[in-house]
């Protein structure tokens, strides 16, 4: 679902204002050096929309994701989610917020407890809700697996026995189990090969229209970001240096960093030998 201009009066689902997160980096000499991973970032995401955050590694994208998912406390600034500030909540309240904002990680191999079966992995968040019986949990988990395109026959497999794409599908199923309103995809496609990337991207698009999901898509791949997102924010050194609709970013890049990211996008023409 793309957000058109006449939706402007809609309430944003996420509003981030001047978010800052710094870490103290202690040197051997005992001096403390402040490292600002995220340095004054502001943006809004509307319900059902996708915002892509694109940047090189080390530009602060993942820290941003952790802050948004309530897994890190921001140093300053605020994060409004469904109209309420969630950046300064106590740990217990943060736990309930976390369920509504789910993360998908880059490395699908290590995002699962290696001892749990596929069914156990998807059932875990369902069991956390505490109100479901064992049979209900199983049925729901199997339904989730089917929704992300995994065969229910895989329920007893271990994560190590799945392919990269299957693992990422499993990660998505697990995240959906808590029925979150926001899904943060932190380089979720980067570890996959091209055709698998396309399949998972299509799955994400399908899920978005079926469940009215809101995505924060974090990547270094500008082309994929442009394909999935309604809006792209380019990050560099903890700041958003450029922001706009995909067309504009691709066709009229304003900053050097965006041009570099664009140059890194593989194009079919590169593969063809130049005419002599």
């Amino acid at each position: 679902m793309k957000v058109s201009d006449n939706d402007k009066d809609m309430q944003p689902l996420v509003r981030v204002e001047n978010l800052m997160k710094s870490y103290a980096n202690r040197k051997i000499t005992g001096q403390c050096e402040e490292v600002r991973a995220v340095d004054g970032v502001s943006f809004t995401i509307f319900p059902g929309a996708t915002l892509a955050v694109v940047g090189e590694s080390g530009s602060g994208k993942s820290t941003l994701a952790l802050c948004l998912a309530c897994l890190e406390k921001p140093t300053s600034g605020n994060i409004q989610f469904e109209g309420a500030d969630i950046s300064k909540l106590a740990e217990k309240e943060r736990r309930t917020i976390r369920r509504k904002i789910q993360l998908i990680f880059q490395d699908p191999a290590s995002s699962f407890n290696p001892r749990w079966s596929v069914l156990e992995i998807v059932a875990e968040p369902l069991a956390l809700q505490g109100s479901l019986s064992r049979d209900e949990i199983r049925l729901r988990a199997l339904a989730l697996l089917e929704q992300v395109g995994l065969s229910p026959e895989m329920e007893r497999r271990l994560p190590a026995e799945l392919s990269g794409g299957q693992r990422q599908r499993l990660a998505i199923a697990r995240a959906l189990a808590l029925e979150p309103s926001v899904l943060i995809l932190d380089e979720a496609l980067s570890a996959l090969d091209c055709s698998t990337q396309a399949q998972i991207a299509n799955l994400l698009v399908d899920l978005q229209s079926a469940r009215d999901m809101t995505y924060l898509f974090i990547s270094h791949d500008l082309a994929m970001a442009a394909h999935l997102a309604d809006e792209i924010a380019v990050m560099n050194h903890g700041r958003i240096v450029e922001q706009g609709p995909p067309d504009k970013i691709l066709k009229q890049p304003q900053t050097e960093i965006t041009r570099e990211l664009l140059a890194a996008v593989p194009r079919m023409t590169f593969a063809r030998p130049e005419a002599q």
Partner: protein
Amino acid sequence: MRYLLRRFGHAVFLLVGVSLLAFTFTTLAPGNYFDEMRLNPQIAPETIAALRTQYELDRPLPIRYAHWVSSVLHGDMGFSFAYNSPVLPLLWVRARNTLLLTITAMLLAWGIALPLGIWSAEHLGRLPDRLLSLGTAALMVIPDLALALGFLVIAVKSGRFPTGGMVSLHFESLAFPGKLGDLFLHMALPITALVLSVLPLLLRHVRAALAEVLDAPFLLAAEGHGISRRTLLYRYALPAAANPLISLFGFSIGTLLSGSLLVEVVMSWPGLGPFLLEAILARDLYVVIGGVLLSTLFLIGGNFLADLLLYWADPRIRTEASV
């Protein structure tokens, strides 16, 4: 099942190998228990020769080994020359004393190492964790012998603790609580020495295993599901980090009989340690072999238990094993 059978096969193989080696080496060592009798002019050479024949010391090694194995299979571990009695009951009394000491020490050491190691891993790199690392490093540098001697010095200087033995001379005259207190007083220092000698190793392993798992994204994912920190540490991280710890636990059980020899000798605890040392010096053949065999049994049993636990705890091993 095949995994367990294979493990069991290994254990039997190991047991045969160790007993054979123990038998061969103790026999290869020069002299035997009756050699010293020859220096005594009052014992006739014929008597010694008769004794040697009676105990089959003049028979070739393979035949003696075969006899010994068949008697072990019937529950008889041989005969002690020095005590003039079967080996097994002798060993058992000493082993019981040793186990009283080592099992208590092992439970204490694990009981301290688990929570402390987890806590340390959670606060990795902070000041308390660094101090703890420094402390364990320091403890590891101190040789066990120095540690045991140190505690002996404490016992002597303070006068509050007995300097050896398991119970006081008037033990039998004490009432039950008094007996317990007396035993505890005698155990306190050897146990402290034992705990201090194994704790650094355990602590470091627990800390390292946990620290590795705590970084894993699946814990972050679980935290993202709104699970509390405590549940995360003990129900998610600890089981995931358990494999090396289970192996280490098996090793702990394996060293229950042999790990405390030094402390026992220094602090004169009436366990296997001083007993075996004496037997070795006297060339009391079957006692030595029996002692070696008993501690091998513990080592094998400990490892086998660890394998069972691993099999039970980790589905990956189960699937690997069924392939």
